[in-house]
């Protein structure tokens, strides 16, 4: 993308205009996330920068909304619920999804594309429709307003992510490595633990992370299927935004942005590790 030395003036102008345009679009993408971080330290109950904040007066900043968050039993309880539901549904989705991915990557899997389309469909069907359908059905079988109901619903939503990620990892798995290990004298179990598992684990872990964040961020299904006892953090945020709008929401939002940064870093490290193990990239 460097400008060649023979570029005309018009081309140079276009080059810089294009760069400027891209900068603006990047700003649109990332700016909103950057705005809320300082706002969450607001000393006043406003959703905007106060005069003190703009003049960098320490009095304009405070941790009161974080304090509010960490001392509120409603928020803490909702975090607990989010983790219970998130961890259980992730485990279930990962086990079911990984097993299925093993079958899907088999050369002899019949009707693969149809099965795949079905397994991915929870990602495509609008959440409100899944939520309504699960609400009707779960009420009939007494699963509505229970932890089990919410966990099963979130397992359904997490499955496509596990299936996509693990299938991608497995289909790029080089089976000659297994033969190589055998020919070098490794036992089947040693081959599995020393060769197969290290290569496949990053894919399974990233699939599980996708499933977890899906559950951790999900509000529509929870809105319909969960009862008052299963209020998760997104549901608490949802009612917070609709009812009493306080900067505590912004403090929670900031913490969640940090969480996604953490998640993204983990995913990137996993990706690099798997590329290195496969010898796709040096170092």
């Amino acid at each position: 993308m460097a400008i060649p030395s023979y570029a005309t003036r018009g081309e140079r102008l276009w080059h810089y205009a294009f760069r400027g345009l891209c900068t603006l679009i990047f700003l649109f993408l990332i700016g909103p996330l950057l705005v809320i971080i300082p706002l969450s330290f607001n000393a006043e109950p406003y959703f905007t920068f106060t005069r003190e904040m703009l003049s960098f007066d320490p009095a304009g900043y405070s941790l009161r909304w974080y304090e509010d968050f960490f001392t509120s039993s409603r928020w803490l309880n909702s975090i607990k619920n989010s983790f219970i539901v998130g961890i259980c549904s992730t485990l279930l989705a990962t086990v079911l999804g990984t097993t299925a991915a093993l079958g899907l990557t088999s050369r002899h899997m019949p009707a693969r594309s149809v099965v795949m389309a079905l397994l991915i469909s929870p990602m495509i069907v609008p959440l409100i429709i899944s939520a309504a359908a699960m609400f009707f059905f779960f009420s009939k079988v007494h699963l509505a307003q229970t932890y089990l109901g919410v966990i099963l619903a979130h397992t359904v939503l997490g499955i496509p992510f596990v299936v996509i990620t693990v299938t991608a990892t497995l289909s790029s798995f080089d089976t000659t490595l297994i033969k190589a290990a055998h020919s070098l004298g490794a036992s089947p179990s040693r081959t599995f633990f020393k060769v197969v598992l290290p290569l496949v684990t990053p894919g399974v872990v990233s699939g599980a992370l996708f499933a977890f964040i899906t559950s951790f961020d999900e509000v529509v299904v929870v809105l319909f299927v969960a009862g008052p006892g299963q209020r998760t953090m997104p549901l608490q945020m949802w009612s917070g935004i609709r009812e009493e709008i306080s900067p505590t929401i912004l403090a929670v939002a900031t913490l969640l942005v940090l969480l996604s940064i953490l998640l993204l870093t983990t995913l990137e490290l996993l990706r690099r590790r798997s590329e290195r193990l496969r010898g796709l990239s040096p170092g």
Partner: protein
Amino acid sequence: MSESTSSGVLTTADGVPLKVSLRRAVRRSRFKALLLVAPLLLFLGIAFVMPIFDMLSRSVANPEVPTHLSRTVAALEDWDSQSGELPDESTYAALATDLAEGHENRAIGRLSSRLNYEQSGMRSAIMRSGMASRTMEPPYKEGLLEAHEAWGQLETWRLIKRESSPYTMSYYLAAVDMKLSPEGAIVDVADNQKIYQALFWRTFWMSGVITLLTLVLGFPIAYLLANLPLRKSNLLMILVLLPFWTSLLVRTTTWIAILQSQGVLNDMMVALGVIADDARWQMIHNKLGTIIAMTHILLPFMILPLYSVMKTIPSSYMHAARSLGGKPFLSFRRVYFPLTIPGIAAGGILVFILSIGYYITPALVGGQSGRFITNYIAYHMQTSLNWGLAAAIASILLFVVIIFYLVFNRLIGVDKVKLG
């Protein structure tokens, strides 16, 4: 391991013909593959597919009249709705018994709302007659007519006879602003009661605008990322992936903080003197708010497929086009752009499908004018409790989404979907 027999058929070491043995092995591994997928298929079948079918069946289910007015329905069997005469005394007696029983076991509320969807005023007719029928003495016709005048009208009886079937189309008709006339013909509802056609239309055109905006904004970014050296583009990719993996509610909240009338953007404009303090822009709780927030939220879904397609276009193509004398714009339009069309199709369909099914963002920043059809599904689920209508609207939306999904699957293939 195989050897030729006298007949010339290849066999394995234990004498089985090679073809048979091979077929057996394929069958075994096919069975093994199916066995591995089976638990997940079973799980999704129970926890996802069955609920969807249950919802579809609910959109046509019509149990209220056949169950709670079973005697009346049986008595009406011989009544000719075109005869112009009211049913006989035995039908009125059956109705009184049904209503008394319904009042007893509290089923009458659901029955009255069901009939009220079809014809307003039926709720009070049923409720009042239900109350009266507990102590009613024959002749029932006089008694019921005294309780409510609706029982003296042919239309009421025609309605009950029409709704005595266990299935109904009326929820679907209501979902597209139509209804059955007393004569059984499909007619439009009164103009001032029409809402859903306009809502479907609004959902589609706003999703179209959002898709177009994500394309306009996403195309340059994908182009830049695909043509920068890997080290730089990986770094910039974080700027796309971070919003992608940030909570949807967080991103919606930020737009509320930025766009509201006492928000960051308006405050900035006032401070800079661009607008007066009392003339702040209304950028949220309307269509504009929905479009801005959803464009931001769905932009990564456009950039990622575009990027993965552009990554495969060799840069030598553009060089060749230029060296053959093509002007920059012409080379781009005739050579590069056509090669990106698969990416545009993938991103466009994906964004459009996701957009028409969005609920959270329109509900929080859309106000009254920026709401989508999904918001009315939620409304009928939670507030009006007209679940049949909610199921019918959801089924129509599901149908549209499935069509786009099939097109997407045909064009791109779901297994090609990448997750950043």
